[in-house]
């Protein structure tokens, strides 16, 4: 009895592993599912019009690549991600001010990037009025990236991989400011944090400790009028009484509106992921939440013309402060901070954790020949190649048709085996789709072809060279390194003169520039 149970368990485990291996899609590949916008429960309607710039897998991948690429800065050293780190909720951990090009410092603390589509304005002074226009500010700021929009577009247009990606995302290989900024927005608009322990508690899916609950109560009485749930900001500008920094002399919102009433007002920031996006305040003057609490506990409206809602200060004992901070830490959204979709696509091989799909209980099938019929159909679908280019589009369409036929059959007569087959086929189809997404950027070549091309180039430049042996070494930044041995006994290292990439799914090499 025990043995048979174990056997069943192992075979089940085997099946799960099999499916998970088929499902081994590198993390940087984005599927349609990954870019679907789902409004979190309780969140208001976004300010950003997603209908005008809907994220697509290609657009999102392009936007993400741009976000992580220092090509956007004058000396190619600073990317958006330099000051907006995912593990810090896309703020800059432990930096009051961030370093820009040439090691220059800015005057303000890098804000967290999250739930941006619910913001009516950007920057701590609200100077930028649209998400699509926001990236222009850091790109052109002299102490941040110090570039011009024209120069960035020029650099991208000269980069073959970007041209291919723009072509893929927008069906047009001419890179314009419009497409460039829309691609970045397709990435930024999906940076949504709504799965912290607080969120799960509100949805009835998690519990909070006694201390955290007391913190929540204190928060509701003292803070929630400005840090309004569920976004934890009311998008207003307020003077919180910290006083002007005598060195920076940053008067905040006043610089935008020039209205005396706006002096020292700054945008109320969201408290989501507050635990990880320290230091705090517009100039990053406080490094701990306790410092922040102490400030608000002591504040009175008379001090530094602070907002009248702060006039009473807060009556907090030590336990209250501990509880308060415990609550603030429930706003840390680990799902968001570790979301693979938002990670740097620079490193390329990654195997995601196996996903175990839950099966519905269905009756067994009587006619086994149906299973065989679909298996045969599946096997008969061939990947056609035209001029060496695999035609994934029609291939996937045919596979898709089979899974849909199975789904129809299951609807009429539900059964477990057919459902298993369907799930297996879908995983396999997803795998092919991932390959297709990767393939769009280049054609596969063999190692031998790379070596031959290098030798050919060498022979044309050095007449006397007789090559006796060559071998491929690891990729360099520009291309691939080929070790070449001459008849004379000399050995030289030659760089392949074209961009070659490793395709981790099919485990072969892909040439981005086919004119070699």
């Amino acid at each position: 009895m025990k043995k048979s149970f174990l056997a069943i368990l192992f075979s089940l485990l085997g099946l799960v592993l099999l499916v998970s291996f088929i499902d081994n899609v590198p993390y940087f590949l984005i599927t349609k599912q990954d870019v679907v916008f789902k409004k979190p429960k309780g969140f208001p309607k976004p300010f950003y019009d997603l209908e005008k710039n809907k994220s697509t897998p290609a657009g999102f991948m392009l936007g993400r690549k741009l976000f992580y690429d220092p090509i956007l800065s004058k000396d190619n050293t600073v990317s958006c991600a330099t000051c907006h780190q995912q593990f810090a909720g896309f703020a800059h951990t432990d930096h009051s001010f961030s370093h820009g090009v040439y090691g220059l410092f800015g005057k303000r603390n890098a804000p967290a990037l999250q739930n941006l589509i619910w913001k009516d304005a950007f920057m701590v002074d609200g100077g930028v009025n649209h998400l699509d226009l926001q990236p222009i500010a850091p790109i052109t700021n002299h102490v941040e990236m110090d570039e011009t929009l024209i120069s960035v577009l020029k650099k991208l247009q000269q980069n073959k991989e970007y041209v291919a990606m723009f072509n893929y995302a927008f069906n047009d290989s001419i890179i314009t400011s419009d497409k460039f900024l829309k691609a970045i927005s397709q990435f930024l608009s999906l940076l949504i944090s709504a799965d912290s322990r607080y969120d799960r508690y509100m949805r009835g899916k998690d519990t909070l400790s006694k201390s955290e609950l007391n913190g929540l109560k204190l928060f509701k009485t003292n803070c929630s009028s400005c840090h309004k749930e569920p976004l934890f900001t009311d998008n207003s500008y307020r003077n919180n009484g910290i006083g002007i920094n005598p060195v920076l002399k940053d008067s905040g919102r006043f610089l935008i509106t020039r209205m005396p009433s706006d002096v020292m007002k700054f945008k109320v920031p969201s408290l989501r992921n507050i635990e990880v996006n320290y230091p705090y305040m517009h100039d990053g003057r406080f490094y701990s939440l306790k410092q922040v609490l102490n400030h608000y506990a002591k504040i009175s409206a008379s001090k530094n013309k602070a907002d009248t809602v702060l006039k009473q200060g807060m009556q907090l004992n030590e336990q209250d402060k501990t509880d308060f901070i415990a609550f603030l830490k429930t706003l840390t959204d680990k799902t968001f901070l570790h979301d693979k979709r938002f990670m740097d696509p620079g490193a390329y091989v990654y195997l995601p954790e196996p996903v175990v799909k839950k099966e519905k209980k269905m009756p067994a099938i009587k006619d086994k020949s149906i299973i065989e019929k679909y298996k045969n159909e599946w096997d008969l679908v061939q990947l056609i190649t035209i001029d060496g280019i695999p035609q994934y589009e029609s291939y996937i369409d045919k596979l898709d048709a089979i899974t849909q036929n199975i789904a129809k059959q299951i609807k009429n007569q539900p059964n477990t085996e057919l459902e298993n087959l369907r799930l297996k086929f879908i995983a396999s189809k997803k795998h092919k789709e991932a390959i297709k997404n990767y393939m769009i950027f280049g054609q596969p070549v063999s190692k031998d072809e790379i070596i031959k091309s290098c030798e050919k180039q060498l022979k044309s430049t050095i007449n006397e060279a007789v090559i006796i042996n060559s071998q491929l070494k690891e990729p360099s930044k520009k291309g691939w390194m080929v070790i070449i041995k001459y008849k004379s006994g000399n050995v030289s290292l030659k760089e392949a003169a074209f961009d070659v990439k490793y395709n981790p799914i099919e485990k072969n090499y892909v040439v981005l520039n086919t004119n070699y």
Partner: protein
Amino acid sequence: MNSVKKIIISSVCIAVLAVILSFKSSQKTKVHIQFTNYVGNAILELDSTYKNELGQAFTIANFKYYIGNICLKKIDGKNYTTQDYFLINEHDDDSKQITLNDVPEGNYTAIEFIIGVDSLHNCSGLQKGALDPTNGMFWAWNTGYVFLKLDGQSPSSKSAGNIFEYHIGGYKKPINSIRKITLNFNSDKTVSSTTPLSVSIKADALEVLKTPTTIDFSKLPSVTDTRNAATIANNYMDMFSLLEK
């Protein structure tokens, strides 16, 4: 059955014909608008030396401005309007010629336009064409278009390189630098397909620096945000006039 078909086909033909005829009755034609930049009474030449009202010498290196919401006014009130924007740039002769393609025939009495970019186009995100932010007439740190740029040098200016720079924008309260310009034609202009209309407009850069406020290069060499923008905007309000033949 056949007769029903015939009736349907012939009625469709008549309808199509009627539509074609109705289009023909209100024919549309082109109107050319030519901007010519001046300094006082002389056509602007970059790097030529001019004098302002205070006798301070200056040269102009850059002169650009946005024109939008062009409206050709008719006596019967059936005005022609376009939502397009145009960036007139001294460095680009093509930019100084605007062609409106679909102006209905008729008698027009005046041309109206704004210098600047209206709030809608300042608030609705990415724009293309003349309003593409790559055109260098865009403030990234305080979203909005620069409506007019006048850059140059004057020995009277004490800033680095003796430069002066007037970059004027601001589309909302309290600083709104958009100015509406109305230029009345001396006599009604008839627009027809046989006699297309050409309007020639003079834009006087010297007017940016005077009336009502005379700009002293030594005191105000630079306006690059909304501070003092209203002063310059009130000056450029009267920089346009018609060059009637």
